[in-house]
């Protein structure tokens, strides 16, 4: 029987301190208050003084409340019964289903041996041309959507989840607004994907410490499914909330902040989560698609900045479009070569973006009142078509259809030689046969 303590010495922020012995680092404890029970995790040992972060927050905790140590670190259940279920940040059901206590596994396990990783080369098709054609998503990639409040990033996430050819979807909601959470649930239900999904959701009204656990829970479960051969897509939204929760605890613990109040280990903390993305040799994979909202649309803010150094590219979501500039999939070369995709894939990818860049310049010139030449007119027509037929998020077509559509747009706006495409490709793909 574990010892029970009922003398809390300090309560500061969401951290309490008790005098206790035989407590291990990162062990869990259960605190029983008048309002109910909450889990807490050991975050510091100093002699017999034990500091714990309380998942449900410290509001209403009295100094005589009972603290019972559980003798194990954070665990989560793992089984096929989890499919279609929704849990909170402490791993408890938030739907009306039964509590699952079978087969508990530890979270935040060890890193994958780099020598066991393989070079990823399988594309995840999403039927979104801005992703499939221009910045292909690759199995085992970790990729954030950089966006700002008000943009439809969660809709985009839900759509990718629904259309991506993966075996399983695990959603980690961190500080998610309640209606956004309901929308996710509704979208996946409508799309018939709920039965292959697991949700870990911490909403904006839930305790903030619990949000810290969400990525670890989601990724631990994903890792087990991947080891069983499943291709798992993990969605994390919003990692800026996660970073802010880290900041809050760090400040409470009187750690020296490094940049805008964030702790010095923000990079390592984010990397520990994102690096769980992996393609296991002879087993399944984990692909991580996350949302990072940029406070003040500032990409040099510590959260997007550190994230950019960790992830394998990023999608910028601006004004409802995935911005072709700045968006980058670092792994796209692995999947869009002639060997792995259609032979005109790279040419369309580069050619259309170069022309779009020229269109942007022309658009600027126009807004400054410069006279528009014939070439400018062509570019303006092209830019409009590119936006409405390729960039618009409602466009929902396969990679091959998108490539064909690319050629069609080019043919409607330009002569073949104006596109700088290789002659050989023009012969093969130009609609209605080019001279």
């Amino acid at each position, binding site marked *: 029987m574990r010892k029970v303590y009922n003398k809390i010495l300090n309560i500061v922020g969401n951290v309490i301190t008790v005098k206790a012995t035989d407590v291990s680092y990162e062990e869990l404890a259960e605190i029983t208050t008048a309002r109910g029970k909450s889990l807490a995790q050991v975050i510091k040992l*100093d002699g017999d003084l034990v500091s714990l972060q309380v998942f449900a927050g410290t509001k209403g905790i009295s100094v005589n409340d009972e603290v019972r140590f559980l003798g194990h670190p954070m665990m989560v259940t793992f089984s096929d019964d989890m499919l279609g279920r929704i849990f909170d940040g402490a791993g408890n059901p938030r739907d009306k289903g039964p509590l699952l206590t079978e087969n508990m596994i530890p979270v935040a396990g060890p890193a994958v041996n780099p020598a066991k990783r393989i070079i990823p080369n399988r594309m995840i098709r999403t039927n979104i041309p801005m992703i499939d054609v221009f910045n292909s998503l690759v199995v085992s990639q970790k990729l954030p959507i950089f966006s700002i409040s008000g943009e439809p990033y969660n809709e985009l996430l839900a759509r990718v989840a629904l259309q991506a050819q993966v075996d399983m979807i695990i959603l980690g909601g961190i500080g998610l607004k309640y209606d956004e959470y309901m929308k996710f649930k509704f979208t996946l239900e409508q799309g018939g994907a709920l039965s292959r999904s697991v949700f870990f959701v911490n909403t904006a009204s839930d305790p903030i410490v619990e949000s810290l656990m969400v990525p670890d829970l989601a990724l631990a479960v994903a890792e087990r499914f991947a080891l069983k051969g499943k291709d798992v897509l993990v969605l994390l939204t919003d990692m800026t909330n996660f970073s802010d929760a880290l900041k809050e605890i760090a400040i409470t613990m009187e750690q020296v902040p490094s940049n805008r109040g964030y702790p010095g280990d923000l990079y*390592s903390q984010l990397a520990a989560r994102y690096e769980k993305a992996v393609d296991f040799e002879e087993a399944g994979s984990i692909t991580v698609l996350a949302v990072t909202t940029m406070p003040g649309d500032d990409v*040099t803010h510590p959260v997007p900045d550190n994230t950019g150094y960790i992830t394998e590219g990023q999608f910028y979501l601006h004004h409802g479009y995935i911005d072709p500039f700045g968006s980058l999939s670092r792994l796209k070369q692995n999947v869009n070569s002639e060997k792995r995709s259609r032979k005109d894939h790279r040419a369309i990818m580069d050619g259309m973006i170069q022309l779009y860049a020229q269109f942007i310049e022309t658009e600027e010139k126009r807004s400054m009142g410069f006279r528009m030449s014939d070439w400018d007119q062509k570019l303006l027509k092209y830019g409009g078509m590119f936006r409405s037929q390729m960039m618009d998020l409602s466009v929902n077509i396969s990679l091959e259809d998108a490539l064909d559509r690319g050629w069609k747009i080019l043919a409607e706006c330009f002569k073949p030689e104006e596109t700088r495409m290789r002659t050989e490709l023009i012969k093969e793909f130009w609609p209605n046969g080019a001279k």
Partner: protein
Amino acid sequence: MSLTTGKITGVNGNMVTVAVTGNIMQNEVAYIIKGKERLKSEIVRIGDGVAFLQVFESTKGLLIGDLVEFSGQLLSVQLGPGLLTQIYDGLQNPLPEIAKEYGFFLPRGVEKKPLDDEKLWEFTPAVKKGDLVTGGSVVGHVPEGIFQHAIMIPFDFSGEFVIEEIVAAGKYAIKDTICRIKDNRDKIFEIAMTFRWPVKIPIKAYRDKIVPTEPLVTQARIIDTFFPVAKGGTFCIPGPFGAGKTVLQHILSRHATADIIVVAACGERAGEVVELLREFPVLEDPRTGKTLMDRTIIICNTSSMPVAAREASVYTAVTLAEYYRQMGLDVLLLADSTSRWAQAMRELSGRLEEIPGEEAFPAYLESRIAEFYERAGLVQLYNGKTGSLTIGGTVSPAGGNFEEPVTQSTLKVVSAFLGLSRDRANARRFPSIHPLESWSKYESFIDKNIIIEARELLRRGNEVNQMMMVVGEEGTSMDDFELYLKSEFLDSVYLQQNAFDPVDAASNRERQKHVFNVVRKILETDFRLETKEEARTIFYRLRQIFIDWNYIDMKSAEFKTQEDEINKLIEEHSENEKGV
């Protein structure tokens, strides 16, 4: 001698405090005993009866009162034949070996031998009984892949020793005694082919450190011609994310003409290391005909591996690099990224509750960075040979802003600065080294004055470009416009290089000299240009032919024909019929 032990009194992240009574020393290695696991740690501070340890592994599950054993040794690496082609973690554990035994994940508290004890090496002695030796003297050789690996007296043997006995040529394992030496008090020491060396102490078993002058040819034109790096020199590559730091490092690790490459993947993405791990064993090194792996050691402590070991990994890498330098080889160490190493120091410093400096980095950041780069150098060894260690580190400045402590501390100590620019990367101008902001204190194999002129042209071309954005092409004089086109030409055909083209990816010294002469000729020619449209057409045409030329093997016949084509075009449009 019994080992000192202690008991844990506190745990905070990867920092553990230990109550201890025996003798301990700063930077000593200690092990926390947790059942079968032995968690390696290092003493980073000593208080009254308390040792502060940074633990190289996860501290999850540690208890107050857990046993700690002190080893009496500084953090060190094992040196000897067999290091090449290895893939180590930051503490020199061979990762493929661990994978064989433990599968997908990195287990906690496990140590593996860095070198194979049993493997036999063909030893040839280089000394005989009665010869005088000292620390660093070569007593024999074993073939290691493409190199003759020198077997040396451990570097901490100072003073003169006499060879008492040396084994005959034959096959020996690294642990076998191969010679016995005697000091002036007749004390005998047994020497094996392997020994350990503490990573934080530079190896100084050489006669002299000399000034690096000879360029280390990296086969990247913009570096070798404009911002050269000398053998034994230092350089840094700062750049925001997405500017191509790691790609540039990979290019250097493939094509640089050093004998040995040590890659320290420090706190970066695992995926990037995997590319090296999977591709180097199959990519051929054109200079040796063997695979690239044969000349490479990879130290890999990626971002999700424990932070403290990240700090150690840089030292592990530089020590292995120094060891091969002692054999008279040219070694290149590439550290990606030194910012992650600095962040590891910052995390540790925070846990020690030290007074923070700028952006919470510790006050000693600058001196640590300086000490690290100072381990580079061209040295003259006791046997008269020279060896060099060149160090290049990437820096990942927060927000891409070079005014941050790590970049600034690094710039103070390195002799070449290859600054990457996001704008150039966005414009797909690779390598994205900024030609106006970068600098090097070393000399290129191309005359200095010519380079100064070329850079001046780039600067003025840039000015004209800026001006054109305001006044438009119409408001720009023909001379200025020509200048602008020339600078763009230099940029497109020479500064930019296609890393994915088998020929263009690597440009050797001979080719660079040859090609740059042609570039120069074009830059110095007065072209006969009537309209801007015509000027643009001529230069675009020149550019096209020139880029095609870059893709042609210098040894092929086509190379000459293409060059004639360029010359013809220059003459056709030159103001002065003969060209310049």
